[in-house]
């Protein structure tokens, strides 16, 4: 521990004038006076230890703040890229941009074709098509009326050949497709519509 020169004590106690001190001791006396003034100005109830800890807490940041500071601070990055990969990446991006966003065109088998069902049922709540292609089971091929104009549509992939079918309206009414132009007796006293599906890759 450094000892304070007795002349500094004397000067601080007013026993000798401050000017009687050599310049070095005068600066020591001024620093001591300044420290005493600081201590005297400290709020009541807070010790020196409290103030030191408070100062330390002010400097200690939370992990989130440290991470935020790391993220926002500039860091040097070195990127080593081969030109050939850069070109391939650019070409892939261009290809992705050229492809349409959504394509639901199905991949058809050799003996498959597309059947388009269109029926006008204004006011209907649901329309579906049932036939030999789905074992006459309801709930498998619904028609849609997206714009609410009463015209219901469905596009379905079916095996090529002839299929018998009917529409089921509102889950209860069985109706032939009058636009089919082809009908066959169903042996139950009604007629089924007949659809001819041409293979797309035929």
């Amino acid at each position, binding site marked *: 521990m450094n000892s304070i020169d007795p002349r500094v004590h004397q000067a601080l106690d007013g026993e000798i004038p401050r000017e009687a001190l050599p310049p070095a001791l005068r600066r020591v006396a001024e620093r001591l006076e300044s420290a005493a003034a600081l201590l005297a100005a400290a709020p009541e109830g807070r010790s020196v230890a409290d103030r030191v800890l408070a100062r330390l807490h002010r400097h200690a940041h939370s992990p989130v703040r440290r991470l935020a500071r790391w993220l926002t601070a500039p860091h040097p990055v070195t990127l080593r890229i081969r030109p050939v990969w850069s070109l391939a990446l650019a070409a892939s991006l261009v290809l992705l941009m050229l492809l*349409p966003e959504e*394509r*639901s*065109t*199905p991949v*058809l088998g050799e*003996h498959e*074709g*597309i059947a388009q069902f269109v029926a006008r049922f204004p006011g209907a709540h649901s329309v579906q098509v*049932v036939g*030999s*292609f*789905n*074992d*006459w*089971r*309801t*709930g*498998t*091929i619904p028609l*849609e009326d997206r714009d609410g104009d009463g015209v219901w549509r*469905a*596009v*379905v*992939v*079916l095996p*090529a*050949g*002839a299929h*018998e079918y009917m529409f*089921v309206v509102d*889950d*209860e*009414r*069985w109706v032939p497709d009058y636009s089919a*132009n*082809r*009908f*066959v*007796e*169903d*042996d*139950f006293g*009604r007629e089924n519509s*007949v659809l*001819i*599906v*041409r*293979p*797309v890759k*035929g």
Partner: protein
Amino acid sequence: MRVALLLACVAAPLAGQSVRSRLEGRVPAAAIPVVDSLVQAAGREGLPTEPLVGKALEGGAKHVVPALIVSAVETRLDQLRSARALLVRGGDAPPATPAEVATVSGALRRGLPPPVVERVVGALPNEPRESALHAIADLVAHRLDADSSASLVIDAIHAGLRGGRLLDVSHAVLEEQQRGRTWAESFARVRDELPDVPPAPKPGEGTVQRARRPSSVSKAPTPP
């Protein structure tokens, strides 16, 4: 021979079980044993069974009474027997394949006169006639002359068209007619162009469903 007999003994009950499981819950219980026995009989005769099962399922879906379902399945079985007899008359060696029997039966149901079917069978002794008969039946359904329709399709086969492309022939005739030509003009025009008939267009973009034979059981609506 012993292996074949063993396989037949094992396969027949399995097929029967499969038919029953397809019918249960979808066809009135009272109709199932009779339909099942008719299906077994068809199988034993070498006839296709799927048209019979399909007819029973159709009746069940339409909530038809059991007696009517059984009657319709019996009618279908008779039609299949007649179709096979016609195939044999047309020159096929018995027994005709189940697929050919089903095809001919379907063509007869759709109104093709038996002599025309016999003529097609005779003209195509070594080829599947399914698409040819579908194409002719399609033209006949639009009230075209059956003999002229058969002649055109047979000409298309001689020009090299096969399979599903024969359906493009009947489609081309119907398109010519829609353009305002007479039937005779439409026939002549398509015949002149053979084998160049427009193929079916590729599917466009949009929502396309795929028909599946579902396995789950659902309640069928009641027809009026």
